[in-house]
C-alpha cells in the first residue's frame, strides 16, 4: 500500500481517502493507478486532501483478496473509499459494512449493485457502439468480420456483446465468420484469431474490445492483409495504427483510466456534502483518426489514453449528468499539454 501524509499537519479535518484496486497486472490498471496517485498528490499539495492510500490486491484479480484488503482498510477508518472491484458482486457485503461505518464509498470502472455506494463508470453501450459502428461503415456495410469478445461472463461484456449484435443485425450484409474469445487482451486475441484464420474466408474487419494490436500481429503472422480493427488506446497500438497508415474504418476505443481521478473528485465533493447522483456515467475514450497523431505521440507504449479530469471538469460533467445535457468533452493531449 502507498500512503501519504499531507505535509505533517496530520489528517486534521482534511479527508483520508483510500483506493482499493482488485488487480494491477495490466497496463490499463497501471495507468489508472498512476493517474490517481498523481492527481491525489496534487490535491494533497493543494490542500484538498489530508492523506491517501492505494492498495492493490496481489494475484489474478481475486475478489477474496480484495475483500480481505478492504476489511483491513476499514480498520484504518478512511473518510472515503474508492474501489475498482475484482468482482461485481463479491464486494457487496463488505461495501455495505463500509457504508455502515460511515465511510463514503465510490465504486468505479464496473457496475456493482450495492445500494449504498456511489458508482462512476463508462457506458459499455457507448463503448461497443463506438467500436462497431465506424468499423462497419468503414468496410462499406458489407463483408466478413470476426467478432472478438471480451471476458465472457462479465456483465459489461454481456452488454457490449448485445450492442454489437444489434449493430450487426442492422447490417445484414456483414457476415460473422467466427466469434472468438479475445478476453480484451491483445495477447489472447492474437492467439485466438490466429487459431481461426486458416479456417475462415477473407476477413474485412475484426470487431473487438481493445485488442486490435494483437489481432494485427495475428494477421501479419498468417501473411494476410490487415483488416479494419478495434485498437486499444495505449501508445503501442496507436503508434502502430499511426505508422501503418491504416485508414479502413479502424478505431481505438476503451474505457477511461482517468475514472479513478474522477472518483477522487467525487469522493471529495461527497465529503463536502455536495449532492451527487448515485450513478454517474462518464465518457469513454475514443481516439479518432484526426486525433491519432496527438495521442500517439503523447503516450508511452503501455500507457493508456486517459481523460485529464480536473475538479472543474468533473463538476461540469456531474451537471451534465444531472441535467441530461451533452457530456463534457475533456481536452485531448495536443490541446491540454
Amino acid at each position: 500500500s502507498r500512503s501519504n501524509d499531507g505535509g505533517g499537519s496530520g489528517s486534521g479535518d482534511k479527508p483520508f481517502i483510500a483506493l482499493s484496486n482488485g488487480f494491477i497486472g495490466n497496463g490499463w490498471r497501471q495507468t489508472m493507478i498512476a493517474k490517481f496517485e498523481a492527481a491525489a498528490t496534487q490535491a494533497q499539495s493543494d490542500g484538498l486532501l489530508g492523506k491517501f492510500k492505494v492498495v492493490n490486491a496481489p494475484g489474478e484479480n481475486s475478489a477474496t483478496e480484495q475483500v480481505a484488503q478492504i476489511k483491513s482498510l476499514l480498520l484504518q477508518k478512511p473518510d472515503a473509499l474508492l474501489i475498482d472491484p475484482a468482482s461485481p458482486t463479491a464486494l457487496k457485503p463488505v461495501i455495505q459494512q463500509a457504508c455502515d461505518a460511515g465511510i463514503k464509498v465510490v465504486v468505479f470502472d464496473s457496475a456493482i449493485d450495492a445500494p449504498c455506494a456511489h458508482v462512476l463508470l463508462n457506458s459499455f453501450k457507448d463503448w461497443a457502439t463506438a467500436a462497431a459502428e465506424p468499423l462497419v461503415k468503414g468496410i462499406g456495410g458489407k463483408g466478413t468480420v470476426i467478432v472478438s469478445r471480451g471476458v465472457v461472463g462479465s456483465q459489461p461484456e454481456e452488454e457490449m456483446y448485445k450492442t454489437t449484435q444489434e449493430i450487426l443485425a442492422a447490417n445484414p450484409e456483414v457476415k460473422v465468420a467466427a466469434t472468438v474469445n479475445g478476453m480484451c487482451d491483445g495477447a489472447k486475441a492474437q492467439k485466438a484469431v490466429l487459431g481461426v484464420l486458416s479456417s475462415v474466408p477473407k476477413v474485412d474487419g475484426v470487431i473487438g474490445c481493445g485488442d486490435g494490436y494483437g489481432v494485427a500481429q495475428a494477421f501479419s503472422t498468417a501473411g494476410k492483409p490487415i483488416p479494419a480493427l478495434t485498437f486499444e488506446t495505449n501508445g503501442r497500438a496507436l503508434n502502430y495504427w499511426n505508422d501503418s497508415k491504416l485508414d479502413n474504418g479502424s478505431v481505438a476505443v476503451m474505457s477511461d483510466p482517468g475514472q479513478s481521478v474522477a472518483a477522487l473528485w467525487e469522493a471529495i465533493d461527497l465529503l463536502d456534502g455536495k449532492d451527487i447522483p448515485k450513478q454517474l456515467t462518464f465518457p469513454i475514450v475514443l481516439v479518432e483518426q484526426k486525433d491519432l497523431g496527438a495521442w500517439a505521440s503523447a503516450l508511452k507504449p503501455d500507457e493508456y489514453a486517459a481523460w485529464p479530469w480536473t475538479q472543474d471538469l468533473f463538476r461540469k460533467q456531474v451537471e451534465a449528468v444531472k441535467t441530461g445535457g451533452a457530456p463534457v468533452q475533456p481536452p485531448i493531449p495536443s490541446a491540454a499539454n
Partner: protein
Amino acid sequence: MTNLVVAAVPPRAQLRRLAPAMVSTIAMFAMVAVCASLQSDVLTVTGLTLILSATVPLVIAAQAQMMLMSVGDIDLGIGNFVGLVTVITATKLVSSPGTGMLFLVGLVAAYALLGALIHLRRVPSLIATLGASFVWLGLGLFVLPTPGGSTPTWLATFGSWAPAGFPAPLLPILVASALVWLLASRGSVGVRVRAFGSNPVALQRAGLSPLAARVVAYGVAGALGVLAGLLLASQTGGGDVSSASSYTLITVAAVILGGGSFRGGNAVPWGVAIGGVTLGLVSVVLSLLDVPSNMQSAVQGAIVLAVLAGRVVVGKVLR
C-alpha cells in the same frame, strides 16, 4: 541393552514434527502484533472479526487440500470448485433449496468419483484435478455466466452474525478444524487415509481397500470444499465462479506452512488452520504497512520465504 540410548528419541522427534506448525504460530502472532502496533483497533473484537473473517473460507478450503495431500495427492481444482459452490449456492440453493442441496451433494459425489477414477486409472492427481478445474469453471460459467445471485437468508444471517465479546470468524475455523482433526487424526477413517498416503501396500496387505481410502479422502475434501464455498458465499452475498481462484495455490502454501508435506501420510488440521490464518493476514499487514504498490507481491513472497526459512533454522537447532 540399547533402550536407554533411544529412550530419549521420541520427545525430540515429536518436537521436530511439531516445529513447522510452531514457527507458523509464531509468525501468526508476530503478524497480529505488527498489525496491532500499526492499528491498535486490531485487537478489539471488531478488529479481529474484520481481519479474520476473510480467512474462514480459505482455512476450510485448505483443510480440503490437506485431506488430499495426506494421501499424497494435490488438488489443483479446489479454487474453481469453491467458486462453483458459491455459484450454486447463489442460484439453485435460493430458488429451490432441495435441488440446490442435491446439487451440492452431487458435487461431493463428483469429487469422490474423481478420486475413484484417479485411483482405478492410476493417473496423477495433479493433472486430473487440473482437468477437473476446467470442468468446475465451465460448469460455474454455465450456471451463472455473470457473477450475481443472492445467498439464502440463513446463510446471509450467518455471514453477518456478530456476537458480542467473541470474534465470530473464530467459531467456524475452530469447529471445522476440530472436526477434521477428529476425523483425520483420531478416527479410524483417518488411519485408513493416512496409511494409504504413507504405504498403500501395507493397507492392501491388511485387507483394506486403497480405493476406499482414496475415495474417502476425496469425498471429505469435496465436502470441505462445499463448506468453504458456502462460507465464502455467506461473506460475498452472491456467486462468482472465479472469486476463489487464488485459493488453489494459497491452500497448498497453507498446508506446507502448517507442517504438512507433499509426501502423504500426514494430517495436520491445526497446523493448516494456523497456516491459513497466517497467509490470510499477509494481505492485512501489506495494507497496513506502507509498501509501494509495485512491491507488494515481492513482500508477500519474502514473508512466505522468511517463515519457511525460520522453520529450517528451528529444525537445525532441534536436530
